[in-house]
């Protein structure tokens, strides 16, 4: 199971890197979304996927799921959700202001704005 997850995570990272390297802002944002999905899955997998019982203290239960990665993922998902929402609005504002979503046209420096 961990092996399968590793492949899935790898594919997610691959797609994310491909999208982040493109020129359109929207594709880049989708890429960061995939990247954080991959990171979250990795977090879950790294805690170990074994364990059949819920992590509640009870007599004779030794084979329980690790609760910590789940708590971590919950936090990380909320954060990446918020940041993605923010960056989408920002990308829209930037598009309205610059009339382009092409990162190549958004270089610019002080001397030639």
């Amino acid at each position, binding site marked *: 199971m961990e092996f399968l997850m590793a492949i899935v995570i790898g594919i997610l990272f691959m797609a994310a890197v491909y999208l982040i390297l493109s020129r359109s802002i929207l594709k*880049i944002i989708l890429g960061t979304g995939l990247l954080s999905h991959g*990171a979250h899955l990795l977090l879950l997998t790294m805690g170990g996927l074994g364990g059949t019982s819920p992590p509640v203290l009870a007599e004779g239960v030794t084979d329980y799921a690790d609760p910590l990665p789940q708590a971590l993922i919950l936090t990380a998902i909320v954060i*990446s959700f918020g*940041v993605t929402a923010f960056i989408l609005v920002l990308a829209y*504002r930037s598009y309205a202001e610059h009339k382009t979503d092409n990162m190549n046209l958004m270089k610019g420096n002080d001397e030639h704005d």
Partner: protein
Amino acid sequence: MINLLLFPIILPFLFAIILLFFKENIKVQRSLTCIGLLISLVAALFLVAKVKADGVQAITLGSWPAPFGISMVSDMLSALLVTTTILITLFVVLYSFTAIGEERERYFYYPAILFMITGINGAFTTGDIFNMFVFFEVLLIASYLLIVLGGEKKQLRESIKYILVNVISSALFVITVAYLYSVVGTLNMADISVKIAEIGQPGIITVIAVLFLIVFGVKGSLFPLYFWLPGSYAAPPIPVLALFGALLTKVGIYAIIRTYTLFFVHDIGFTHGLLSALALLTIVAGCIGALAYFDVKHIIIYNIVIAVGVILFGAAQMNEAGLTGAVFYLVHDMLIKGALFLLIGIIVYVTGTSNLRKMGGLMKTHAPLGWMYLIAAFGLAGIPPLSGFVGKLLIVKGAFEGGNVFGSIIILASSLVVLLSVIRIFIYAFWGDPTTVELPTTNRRTYRKMMMPAVALVILSVLYGVGSEWLIPYMTDATDVLLQPSIYIDAVLKE
């Protein structure tokens, strides 16, 4: 008083929430921000005194036993950094009253600053590696707002790059924490240190160490990951730039110092060798940038990069002199960068441009500004008895003790480049014939109001240098914890 170390985190947070309800009332915003920061400052000073008297303070939230709950730990290093952070923010806020403009003040400028301080102080104080990620995000999200606030074309353009870089490095942070968790099975930093010592740092831990270096290197602008910094930092207005330049990269540096003295201390030859090599390259790259530009903002921004290199080089020596120097220089750099950016802001306000070629002759019209700038510039370059000197002296001493002669020479040479780069601003802006340059009409009262916090910060940095003898006990306390992780571990795990 066991909750004392939480106050510098919670107080700014509380005041930020209150401020959200007074969006239109600028007077309330200003006064509440000042009151909040003053109370936090008092709490932070109490914390420093408490840590000095009783050693490392630790608290585990929710009263869970230590490795299970989230620990907050305040040793001397983090207490000092928290205090400096609040102090600088206070002066920058006072400066913002005249410099930032009412439009921005009305759109959550002060709450954003306070939220950022919450995140910064939290990152300095936390004793849990995942909690550090959360506090990083808190400060980053507040900084996203600050960098884009105002919505100028240039700000929008640069903030997209800034956010993308930080989103990617945050994802990498989560990935690294996941790897670390899979190896040691814990997130409490003291516990991680114990577990790594038990397994004796096999190869996988060294890989994680390098991953951490990449993550924090992006935040702290280490070579070759500093590429985003000059462009992004130049976009927002000066008070925001002062906050970013003085505080944000320092959080990354703190995180590197903390992880490289607490976790990864069993294969120093590789990890710390890599760190010091990258630090030296950072210094060289920063020097090139500092001399290449004719824009005052960019010159000082590249000086941030140089300082990052100097501090991390000191930390990488892993001996007493080097680490004491790094801690000393870290606090010095926060103060002096804050002061310099505020002064640069006044120069830009007075001349109406940030291009050195269009300035000249300010010494005739604005002499106090010139003298203050000169003192700050000498302090930055490290001319005794100003504050940069002691830190650099200790770092170079540490490097010689560690047999790193080549590195010491680069540090010393970089001081000359730093001096040259800041004196170039002095020569271009303050010397010369005032009649050739036409100054825009500016309000003399605004100028004086802007001068006050800047002068106060310069005086503070001078006192920091002159009073270094008195401060050394605090610095050695901070270094002791860095050199002997057992002090930190005992404070957290034996409660």
